[in-house]
């Protein structure tokens, strides 16, 4: 399980023993490229096993429960707070132009297109991605993955694919719930506290939010879900089979997921303009 190591030698050192910054930078770049390649190859293998994995839907359902249902409380709580903050900030801003009735529209668009998918993915990476990664990593460290291999059961099909699919299905659902609760939070501030007319709040939202916006949010959350789940199962599957190795892999999962989600968000937003 060490074949994913970068294919080049150790970082060359300067004569005074310090790592030369140029070669260090080159080595980091090479590492990154090698990693992208390794993840892509793993994705191909994983996708090949996703259809056979559908034969056992109960495994996938269990993972949707694990990754999705167990993140529900934290997602709803965060959605509520984000919605309430949007309500306060939006009201402050819109009031200056005398258009506080547009609050419903602003909050809904912000949540559905941007904050819902992004924050859900970040929370998912922290809550479910880490547990996916450490779970698979520990199974590797305790020879359970090897035992499956020896029983002629592909661990990618039996362990990795259900977890990946579970995450892929759970994130869009969680993002939708996040956005709904968020809109409720904004309504709580705007209508209940700031006395915007409920009718205008909702009708403005209804006329401004189209199917296109919902689709944008949906596509984003599917992509983010795939990215976060893929990174988590990749890191877990390739973790060094030691306690330290699993810990490091878990940390890497969160960090790379967060960066990747924000990067993908920028690219997708630009593409949807």
């Amino acid at each position, binding site marked *: 399980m060490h074949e994913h190591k970068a294919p080049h030698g150790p970082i060359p050192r300067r004569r005074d023993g310090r790592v030369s910054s140029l070669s260090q930078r080159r080595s980091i770049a090479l590492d990154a490229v090698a990693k992208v390649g390794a993840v892509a190859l793993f994705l191909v293998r994983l996708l090949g096993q996703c259809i056979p994995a559908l034969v056992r839907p109960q495994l996938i359902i269990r993972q949707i429960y694990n990754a999705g249902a167990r993140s529900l409380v934290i997602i709803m709580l965060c959605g509520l707070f984000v919605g309430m903050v949007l309500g306060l900030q939006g009201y402050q801003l819109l009031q200056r132009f005398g258009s506080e009735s547009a609050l419903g529209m602003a909050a809904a668009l912000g949540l559905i297109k941007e904050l819902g998918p992004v924050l859900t993915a970040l929370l998912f990476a922290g809550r479910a991605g880490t547990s996916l990664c450490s779970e698979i990593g520990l*199974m590797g460290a*305790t020879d*359970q993955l*090897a*035992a499956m291999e*020896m*029983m002629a059961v592909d661990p990618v099909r039996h362990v990795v694919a259900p977890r990946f699919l579970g995450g892929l299905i759970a994130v869009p659902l969680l993002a939708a719930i996040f956005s709904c609760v968020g809109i409720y939070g904004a309504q709580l501030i705007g209508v209940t506290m700031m006395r915007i007319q409920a009718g205008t709040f909702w009708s403005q939202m209804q006329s401004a939010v189209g199917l296109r916006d919902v689709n944008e949010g949906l596509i984003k959350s599917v992509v983010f879900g795939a990215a976060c789940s893929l990174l988590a199962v990749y890191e877990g599957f390739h973790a060094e089979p030691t306690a330290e190795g699993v810990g490091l892999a878990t940390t890497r999962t969160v960090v790379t997921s967060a960066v990747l989600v924000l990067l993908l968000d920028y690219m997708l937003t630009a593409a949807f303009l």
Partner: protein
Amino acid sequence: MIDDDIVVEVRGVHYAIGTHAIFKGLNMRVRRGAITAVMGPSGTGKTTLLRLIMGQSVAQRGHVTVFGKEVAGLERRELYKLRQRVGLLFQNGALLTDLSVFENVAFPLREHTDLPEPVLRELVLMKLQTVGLRGAAELMPAELSGGMARRVALARAIVMDPEMLIYDEPFVGLDPISKGVIVRLIQSLNRLLGTTSIVVSHDVREISAIADDSYLLAEGKVMAEGSPAELCKEQTESVRQFMSGTPDGPVPFHYPAPDYFEQLLARPDA
């Protein structure tokens, strides 16, 4: 000896992990329907040898053939087909921790067969009964002792009635009663079902009682082979040393290291 009667053949295998050479030209044959014992000091690579046979790692040089097929050249699917014919008992059990004892033993059946639930249940309970753990069927692996876990792993290894069974140190951590039961189990599986068996073990006495052939590995090679009786009669000093268990002799007890005295005297800052 007809070639068809050889289930596993290892020819001139060289294998190194990093710079550490583990096998330097290993040769071995496992006859169909025989119990083959593999003995050797700790760290000689007995577990590594089993990995090579199961196709989990690939030798840098030499050939490993199992059921007449070269393991190194097999695709994943063919390799899996081959592994379905072999039961492997891991040195540490390697039970799936999220499944109960019953489900662990049922796992290979659920994956590879379409048996109706009552039949599957009967089969699993039968295998658990053989290892004396039918009462523990509903426990989780975390609730088992080390020896119990290994017996569950054994039940799992035999549940498919494989053509060949590979045991990696089946007697470690077992009390004398379970040890006796497992020895008799290995023997009866072999005699009644004709299961070819490879047993890796240090227990010279237990294994000598049941093995047909035995190999003594040391320093990356086969140091001695033959029936256990022949091995016991062997006059080479190194073989005698292992069979009688003394640290001083040609077989090193220590992992390769610089001179002990020099290392103790050496200053860290020197």
